[in-house]
């Protein structure tokens, strides 16, 4: 029997027992407890509305009024060829395939890497790496005050689990391809990922969201990253969902002393997209570099919500988000920097630049600083503009054709964020997609 939800919050509460019975044969009691607590939070919170300050610019009515259901398998629509079509070309990686949120081991390819490194589906890890999962899962992504995290926590079924022990380096990146199929419209998928990187260890994780058809569904993603002392990690969010789908993602990063995280978000798909990135720099000398690029067109809506928390002295953070908006698209950049008491000598910087390619595109950008401390350096800057005619003329006066000049200008804008990607094949693949985006945009003008 399909587990279905309607526009009433109760339907989500009522569905949970059946969900647990259907998808978890033997659910550990600690997990069952968390799930039950999480749905209680969700029923209290409900879906956010624009009255909620953090959701002021994003109306979720299309989600809250929709009738979703837990996705069916959809596996018949996916095979080796379709996987190859979606995957990043020439990326040497551990490949994990999820279809409608469920791990498909036959299509996945996990290679051997350094000793002790664990890469598998979270559902498997619930048994095999029970202690690690229990210790970390849900400890950072707080569900009590966040509707989507609580919904994910209650209804997650699977995701990727990565564990890199002390001083080990994962040579190959972990590539997680999430495919939504159209076997059944309006499905709700709650991918849940947990990445544990111990002291002095290193890993790169790529999350990639695609669909086989342009249909309606909600991907509600939560990824928890735990970085030990001096650990290094890179995270990629490649959001290429169906143009009718909703993607709400939360990346929650917990950092210990001297650890470094680099996060890259590329938003291209989806009707309504919300990209939450929330690192907590909890130990001296941490670095958080957060890059993003959002390219909404038509009537797409993309909302980036950054919350960078400095909880210890001597930490540096950089936020670098660029947006290019066309047609009737809307974009939001909400960048909050919180400097807690005692986080002396914080150096936090935030930049948000936007290019509007049409008169009807719209961007709301809102930097916010909360500083409970002295002796800190926080800067933020936001710009909104059109394509620079002077620069276009300059390029044309050098013999470069109009279309090419426009492409160069847009590329210069996207390069600022793409350049920071260390995985060359990912960068190239994104560059190509962005070029296609430009071509399409020019063709319509």
């Amino acid at each position, binding site marked *: 029997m399909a587990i279905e939800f309607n526009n009433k919050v109760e339907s989500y509460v009522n569905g949970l027992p059946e969900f647990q019975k259907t998808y978890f044969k033997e659910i550990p009691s600690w997990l069952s407890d968390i799930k039950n607590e999480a749905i209680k939070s969700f029923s209290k919170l409900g879906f956010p509305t624009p009255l909620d300050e953090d959701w002021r610019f994003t109306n979720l009515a299309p989600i809250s009024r929709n009738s979703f259901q837990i996705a069916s398998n959809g596996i018949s629509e996916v095979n080796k060829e379709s996987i190859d079509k979606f995957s990043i070309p020439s990326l040497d990686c551990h490949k994990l395939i999820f279809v409608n949120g469920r791990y498909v081991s036959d299509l996945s390819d996990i290679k051997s890497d350094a000793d002790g490194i664990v890469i598998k589906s979270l559902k498997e890890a619930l048994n095999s790496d029970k202690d690690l999962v229990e210790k970390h899962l849900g400890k950072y992504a707080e569900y009590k005050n966040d509707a989507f995290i609580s919904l994910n926590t209650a209804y997650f079924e699977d995701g990727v689990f990565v564990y890199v022990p002390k001083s080990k380096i994962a040579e190959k990146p972990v590539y997680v391809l999430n495919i939504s199929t159209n076997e059944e419209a309006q499905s709700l998928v709650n991918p849940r990922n947990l990445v544990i990187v111990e002291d002095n260890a290193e890993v790169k994780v790529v999350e990639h969201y695609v669909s086989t058809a342009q249909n309606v569904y909600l991907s509600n993603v939560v990824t928890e990253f735990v970085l030990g002392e001096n650990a290094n990690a890179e995270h990629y969010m490649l959001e290429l969902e169906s143009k009718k789908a909703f993607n709400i993602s939360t990346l929650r990063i917990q950092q210990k002393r001297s650890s470094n995280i680099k996060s890259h978000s590329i938003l291209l798909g989806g009707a309504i997209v919300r990209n939450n990135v929330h690192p907590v720099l909890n130990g001296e000398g941490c670095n958080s570099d957060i890059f993003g690029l959002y390219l909404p067109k038509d009537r797409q809506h993309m909302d980036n919500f950054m919350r960078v928390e400095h909880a210890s002295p001597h930490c540096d953070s950089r936020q670098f988000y660029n947006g290019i908006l066309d047609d009737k698209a809307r974009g939001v950049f909400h960048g909050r920097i919180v400097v807690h008491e005692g986080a002396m000598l914080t150096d936090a910087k935030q930049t948000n630049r936007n290019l509007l390619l049409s008169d009807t595109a719209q961007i709301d950008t809102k930097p916010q600083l909360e500083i409970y401390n002295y002796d800190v350096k926080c800067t933020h800057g936001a710009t909104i503009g059109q394509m*620079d005619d002077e620069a276009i003329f300059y390029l*044309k*006066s*050098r*013999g*470069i*054709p*109009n279309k090419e000049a426009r492409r*160069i200008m847009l590329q*210069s804008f996207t390069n600022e964020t793409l350049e920071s990607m260390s995985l060359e094949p990912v960068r190239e693949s994104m560059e190509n997609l962005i070029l296609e985006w430009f071509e399409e945009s020019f063709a319509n003008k």
Partner: protein
Amino acid sequence: MLEIRNLHVKVEDKEILKGLNLTVNKGEIHSIMGPNGSGKSTLSQVLAGKDAYEVTDGEVIFNGKDLLELDPEDRACEGIFLAFQYPVEIPGVANTYLLREALNAKRKYNDLKPLKHVEFGKLAREKMKDLEIDESFLKRSVNEGFSGGEKKRNEIFQMQILEPSLAILDETDSGLDIDALQVVAKGVNSMKSPDRSFLIITHYQRLLNYIVPDYVHVIYDGQIVKSGGKELAFELEEKGYGWIEEEKAAKV
């Protein structure tokens, strides 16, 4: 090579050029001088094809073609180069990328094969040496964070790579110290050839000590009111533009 006849140009309903005539033959160096607001920069921008300017009358023939009919990029490919008075900063676009794209666009226009990376690199390095430009220049974003002098040298560098048949220098000397000025002048002089013409727009006579013009024209109120040899530049330097204004007033 270049024939400007009775050129009238408007910007936002204000007439700036009011019937300008000028002929530049192959291999000649012409200097255009004039006070602020006389129409010097407008002339250079109109020749390069900036669309904010409206040509209301007259014509411009370049190598037998109606220049005003061509898009800016086609004018460049036909051999026109404008060294900007205020070169534009383009963050995120490397100098080398711009130059290679520009050179190859021009080669394509003229049915030539694109230059390979290696060949281009060799060419660029050669020219950079002469202009005392550091190699890091190539990788830096176009004019971003450049000093005034670096920006102007970059314009000359681009000119050397693109090898135009008509180079228009719009106040390239303004704001340069004497050392930078000499480097720029050297770059221009090394390009002199019987097939190449120069239109040097300047406010000061100083540059003309280093780049010796065949003709000097004085532009005033949208027209060329006086033409002569290089002596005219010295006269202007000494007496200022006041006597030109008086002379013109007396004529009316």
